[in-house]
């Protein structure tokens, strides 16, 4: 008996020591790691997963005087810049006075497709005074030009590409720009998660509404938000890859019809945004006010699932799923994927009654290969859970029987 108590005390001491060591390690990690950025940029919440280095073409669109001319044009580019991308960059990138803010630290972000299936992701900032001295700041835009495959490595998420460009440091204006640039090396991380939620509840509502409108194929403008880049990233978080591919967006850049975008994010209040957007071509959502019924109900189930996943800390799983939805993103397909995925998540903790309920998701006809695959996973998860529950029930029965037998023998002995 004395040995047992000594062993228990030793175990407890060991546990206490481990807890203290873990606490010390956590404190040390917190002290050495940089603080998580708040809403100032579009940094992802999750730590990055395995990384892949992607080489892409790059170009700089700005106004500098050179032997070939002056004014806004592509002043530097890597060797393989496709001609169509060159045309689209010239047409769509912001020029003089076209960032929404005139503050020195103003920044803009755009993503658009060139007709050849090439994706351009552009980061704009001010780079000193305009060289002809006619007032205003020179807008410097750094563009990464990604092939379809390279864009897919980023989950077709333009904000993820923008983060990778920022991490590479390539977007910062250089003192001198050579005409020929090398290819740009970007790091694509797998399993990256969603973006930090900031702003008021009305902003979260507006972001969800914007995602719904984009899924329904409607051009959307989001205004009255705290941080345009963050809001755009959060909208993209809610969209499957197939829908992300259709989104051509700008944040912090003035609206111009020639940019032909279907999603515009600006921080300005509604009245100001409505003036610049003009016309009924875009649905205007105000992040500072409660939403009316602008959001189409068709994608409700998917959006509810996506929001719940983010809220419950399942961003990585959501992102992995979003990346796999590359072809069909019709409302009914997404609803089924959402229902089955939710069931897979709930299966490991479901009780008998809930299992029956969850099994319903496997009985509907699968809409597409992904839904079929998810249904298979759900069946396996349900079977696994069923087995666990059966084993638990059998163990409980056995325990009850043993208890009963013990009680019986005890009562016989006492009798």
């Amino acid at each position: 008996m004395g040995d047992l108590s000594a062993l228990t005390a030793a175990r407890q001491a060991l546990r206490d020591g481990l807890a203290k060591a873990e606490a010390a390690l956590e404190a040390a990690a917190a002290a050495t790691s940089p603080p998580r950025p708040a809403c100032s940029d579009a940094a992802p919440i999750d730590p990055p997963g395995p990384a892949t280095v992607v080489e892409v073409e790059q170009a700089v669109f700005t106004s500098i005087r050179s032997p070939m001319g002056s004014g806004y044009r592509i002043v530097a580019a890597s060797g393989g810049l496709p001609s169509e991308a060159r045309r689209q960059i010239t047409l769509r990138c912001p020029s003089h006075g076209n960032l929404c803010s005139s503050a020195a630290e103003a920044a803009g972000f755009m993503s658009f497709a060139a007709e050849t299936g090439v994706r351009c992701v552009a980061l704009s900032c001010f780079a000193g005074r305009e060289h002809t001295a006619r007032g205003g700041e020179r807008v410097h835009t750094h563009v990464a030009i990604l092939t379809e495959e390279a864009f897919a490595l980023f989950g077709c998420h333009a904000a993820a590409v923008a983060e990778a460009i920022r991490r590479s440091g390539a977007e910062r204006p250089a003192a001198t720009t050579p005409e020929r640039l090398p290819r740009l090396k970007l790091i694509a991380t797998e399993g990256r998660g969603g973006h930090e939620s900031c702003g008021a509840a009305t902003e979260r509502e507006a972001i969800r509404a914007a995602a719904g409108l984009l899924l329904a194929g409607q051009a959307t403008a989001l205004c009255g938000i705290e941080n345009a880049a963050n809001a755009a990233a959060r909208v993209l978080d809610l969209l499957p890859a197939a829908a992300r591919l259709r989104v051509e967006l700008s944040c912090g850049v003035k609206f111009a019809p020639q940019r032909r975008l279907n999603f515009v994010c600006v921080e300005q209040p509604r009245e100001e945004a409505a003036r610049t957007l003009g016309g009924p071509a875009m649905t205007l959502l105000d992040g500072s006010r409660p939403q009316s019924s602008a959001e189409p109900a068709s994608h409700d189930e998917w959006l509810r699932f996506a929001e719940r996943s983010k809220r419950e800390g399942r961003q990585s799983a959501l992102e992995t799923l979003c990346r796999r939805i590359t072809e069909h993103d019709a409302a009914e397909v997404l609803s089924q994927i959402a229902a089955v995925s939710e069931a897979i998540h709930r299966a490991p903790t479901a009780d008998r009654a809930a299992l029956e309920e969850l099994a319903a998701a496997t009985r509907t006809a699968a809409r597409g290969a992904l839904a079929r695959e998810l249904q298979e996973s759900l069946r396996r998860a349900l079977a696994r859970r069923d087995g666990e529950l059966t084993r638990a029930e059998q163990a409980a029965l056995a325990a009850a029987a043993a208890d009963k037998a013990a009680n019986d023998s005890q009562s016989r002995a006492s009798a």
Partner: protein
Amino acid sequence: MSTSIVNKTAGGVPCLICDAVNSPKAMACQECTAPMQFVHDLMAQEREPRIVTVMGDSNVGKTIYLGFLLDMLSQRANDYEAVPKGAYSVDLQHTVISHMAYRMFPPKTPVESNEWRWSYYQVRRAEGTSPWVDLIMPDMAGEAIAAEVASPSTFRIVRNLLQKSAGALLLIDAAMASNGSPQPDFFGLKMLSYLESMLAPKRDAQIDTPVAVVLCKADYCPECFDQPRRFVEANLNRMSNMARSRFARVEYFASSVVGSLAYATSEEDGFVRPIPLHVSLRGVLEPFEWVISQL
């Protein structure tokens, strides 16, 4: 280069520049972003409008030239009577004159076509017998023109506009040319080549559209006021040869707006800024008069 007759089509209004049908309430053409205000103003006139286009490289001085030209017309210079149609038509000259009064050059015109200033003026000689001419003059960004010339159909609005123009003013930086820079010559050559490929009715035929070549910033090289044609032949030879062989109606003019310049700098700026001390207009109206006489 003929303009379309402005008429209402069923369910919409056609754009004056690209003929795309727009909703009657549209402020700008959904296809080419040209303002739809002209169409509404022109419908009341029941006349064919004439578009005169001002072309030129970035920083050549298109905005300032056009601003002073419109201002001279509205001040009835040389017996012209000019009536701006709509307050938007006065924006450009207002901006240019106000900035110059404060000894500043007007702001750079953005590449975004929805921010270009358009002017619609009714012009005639003041003697009273000459007919009114509806003139539409957009202030385009030089970069957009250069991008369209380099890669046609990048800025469709530029192409559509030039196709519909009854006459054109081609602005060339005479100061750069006289300094030995080949840039103005190449820009002029490209521009004429672009016009030729777009407008030539058939191979080897000369183009009949009047083109006035305006040598801007001529105060830097006053010799070009005396014999602009000789100046062009000497300093812009490539363009001059192209004009001679492919354009039936080309005339050369020297023009300057600034009387005297000062240069200023500060430690924060890090570069030298030109300050227009006073305005002294010379050769601004003549190119326009010549184009009008050729229409």
